[in-house]
């Protein structure tokens, strides 16, 4: 398959691994921002192959994992209201709120429907005028343009039964929050390739310059990931820090201007609590006041949030901030598994805990080391 097979070429991957090992004079600490990259690195065995050469810390790039429990609780509460049909992406269904997941809410009668696109939710609203269709919008800049488009489409169709519960988050403020943290060990970033198809490359330049870190836009296949790592390591070894693009087959320097236009028409940035990371300045998106009629926060009154007690056995906050690797959590693989997750990162297809649980051998010569991590 074109654009896939050549990026899985074992010989090319081997030679890149060799080059990285030759170049690195010390063990550099890189963060792969996106959960999809974490899965790719573990699935292909790159993390294990580079042990002692490059330490890869997973980033917060799993949008469903960082969605605060209050937002999930509100979505669940809406799904249980008569006349409301709550729609969302499949990944969101199993993520626990403060008490349960949307899947269990559906099992006890909540009206929850999985959709593949927010535009499907608009279509559902058009077909069911007697129901209030709410789309629970999660995701980074990758999915935000499509949800923005759904608002424009709903407005064009004159729908008064469609709204968005917006939990969109922005990648760059989260990267900055990580760099600002006192315990930050990250020396370079593999920026999330898919997000950059929208936001572009140049937007990272200020961040890279201000903190003196290399930021390399990186894809998801083994060769993509190795090219990103190689670029980062080469920069670190030569003492430079710039932004570069190793995912050029998908990412243009300026990003997707059309998508960004639509986003800025519909959304404004806002401070946003991230699960595990706390409130991140400008870390989220909200609907602009002129689109308020499509905002589920305004259409439906949100109940006063109850005091949330995060599960004491779950260290997803530390995992999401990259402070520990999932296997270092005492509950990992014992009390917390994909079947009975304590935290969102064990559930989502992009979650770091799920990635380590699925792809990393738990013991043996290829087991992922947890000793060389933060604390």
């Amino acid at each position, binding site marked *: *398959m074109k654009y*896939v097979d050549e990026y*899985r*070429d*074992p010989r090319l*991957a*081997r030679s890149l*691994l060799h080059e990285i090992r030759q170049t690195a004079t010390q063990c550099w600490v890189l963060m792969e921002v996106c959960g*999809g990259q974490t899965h790719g690195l*573990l*699935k*292909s*065995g*790159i993390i*294990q*192959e580079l042990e002692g050469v490059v330490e890869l810390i997973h980033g917060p790039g799993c949008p469903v994992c960082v969605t605060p429990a209050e937002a999930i609780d509100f979505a669940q509460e809406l799904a249980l209201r008569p006349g409301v049909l709550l729609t969302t992406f499949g990944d969101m269904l*199993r993520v626990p709120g403060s008490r349960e997941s949307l899947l269990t809410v559906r099992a006890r009668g909540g009206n929850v429907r999985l959709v*593949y696109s927010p535009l499907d939710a608009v279509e559902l609203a058009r077909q069911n005028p007697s129901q209030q269709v709410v789309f629970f919008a999660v995701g980074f800049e990758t999915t935000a343009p499509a949800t923005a488009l759904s608002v424009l489409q709903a407005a064009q169709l004159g729908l008064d039964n469609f709204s968005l519960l917006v939990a969109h988050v922005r990648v760059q403020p989260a990267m900055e929050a990580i760099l600002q943290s006192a315990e930050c060990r990250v020396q370079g970033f593999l920026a999330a390739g898919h997000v950059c198809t929208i936001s572009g490359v140049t937007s990272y330049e200020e961040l890279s310059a201000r903190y003196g870190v290399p930021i390399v836009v990186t894809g998801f296949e*083994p060769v993509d990931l190795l090219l990103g790592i190689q670029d980062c390591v080469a920069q670190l070894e030569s003492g430079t820090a710039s932004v570069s693009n190793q995912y050029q087959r998908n990412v243009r320097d300026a990003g997707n201007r059309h998508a960004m236009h639509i986003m800025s028409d519909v959304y404004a940035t806002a401070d946003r609590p991230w699960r595990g990371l706390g409130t991140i300045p400008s870390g989220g998106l909200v609907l602009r006041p002129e689109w308020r009629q499509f905002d589920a926060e305004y259409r439906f009154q949100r109940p006063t949030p109850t005091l949330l007690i995060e599960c004491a056995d779950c260290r997803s906050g530390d995992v999401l901030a990259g402070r520990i690797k999932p296997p270092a959590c005492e509950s990992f693989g014992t009390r917390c598994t*994909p*079947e009975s997750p304590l935290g969102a990162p064990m559930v989502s*297809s992009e979650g770091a805990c799920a990635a380590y*649980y*699925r*792809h*990393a*051998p*738990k*013991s*043996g010569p*290829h*087991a992922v080391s947890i000793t060389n991590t933060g604390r």
Partner: protein
Amino acid sequence: MTAAGNQYSCPIPEAAGERVTLAHGEGGRLTRKLIAEHLLPALGNQILSSLGDAAALPNVAGPLAFTTDSFVVSPLFFPGGDIGTLAVYGTINDLAVSGARPRWISLSLIIEEGLPLAVLDRILQSIAMAAKVAQVEVVTGDTKVVPQGAVDKLFINTAGIGEIVAPAPPGPASLEVGDELIVTGPLGRHGIAILASRENMGFEPPPHSDCAPLTPAVSILREAKYPIRAMRDATRGGVAAVLHEWASQAPVTMQIDEAMLPVTAEVRGVCELLGLDPLHIANEGVMVIAVPAGWGRQVVSLLRTLEVAAQAAVIGQVISQKIAPVVVRRALGTDQPLDEPLGAPLPRIC
């Protein structure tokens, strides 16, 4: 029960637009009419046509295999098959991989009121055709009609009886280090066909299900007297589920080589797009076979003489217990654990 009762047909006409009504399931005249005019013409055979409370089956010499399965697939019709073909092949494949020659099946229909009779007829024709291909007879059955919303259009249960033909494969507990693992065809076609058709994904051409009987493949191996350790159809949970189940029954690890997996371009494309693994996707006409070391190539060349197994391939081997019950050799040449399918990425595929 015969069609004779129709001469005195009740003045109540069949539902407008020829749809199944609750009355069709109440055991009265409309039930008899449904059986006489729709079920028997499609499926009738000597045993079924006697319409007794139970089918009287002839004597058989040896031991029997008995299985049952329910079918709730949505949509009812999909490229490559429908709920009818699935209901026949699903059950006879369970018999076949257990080393049995399928002989008889039962057919229970749970119909949502309002189902167009034309739809039912089409599905009955598929059942008849599949039964003929698989050389089984539908010998007993039941029909229930439930109010709208109680089921989604049509659910089917089939049970099947087959004669166990010696020697039946000893099963996964007999797996030994060095055994070779084979699949009889490309992976994941059924699950992807259902996904693409249910979600109107608009692929052109649409991915087709692999829904097919495995009986020819099982027979040809039996006739060749090849040593088979275990056979299993890779339905829900795909090949990964079979391998995990096998690994749980013997102290061994299943080692698969990603580069050796047969996957069609359509399935691969959809899987790449949606982040799915073909090893986790359901099949309805593919089985996994374990044979002793050194037999893989011979078994595959024999299987490839059959249309249903034209793309059979050795995909890996049984090794001594390693880091995980099932491992996949990925791009860099290292073995990575393959997780067990969790829940249903895609519900109601069969």
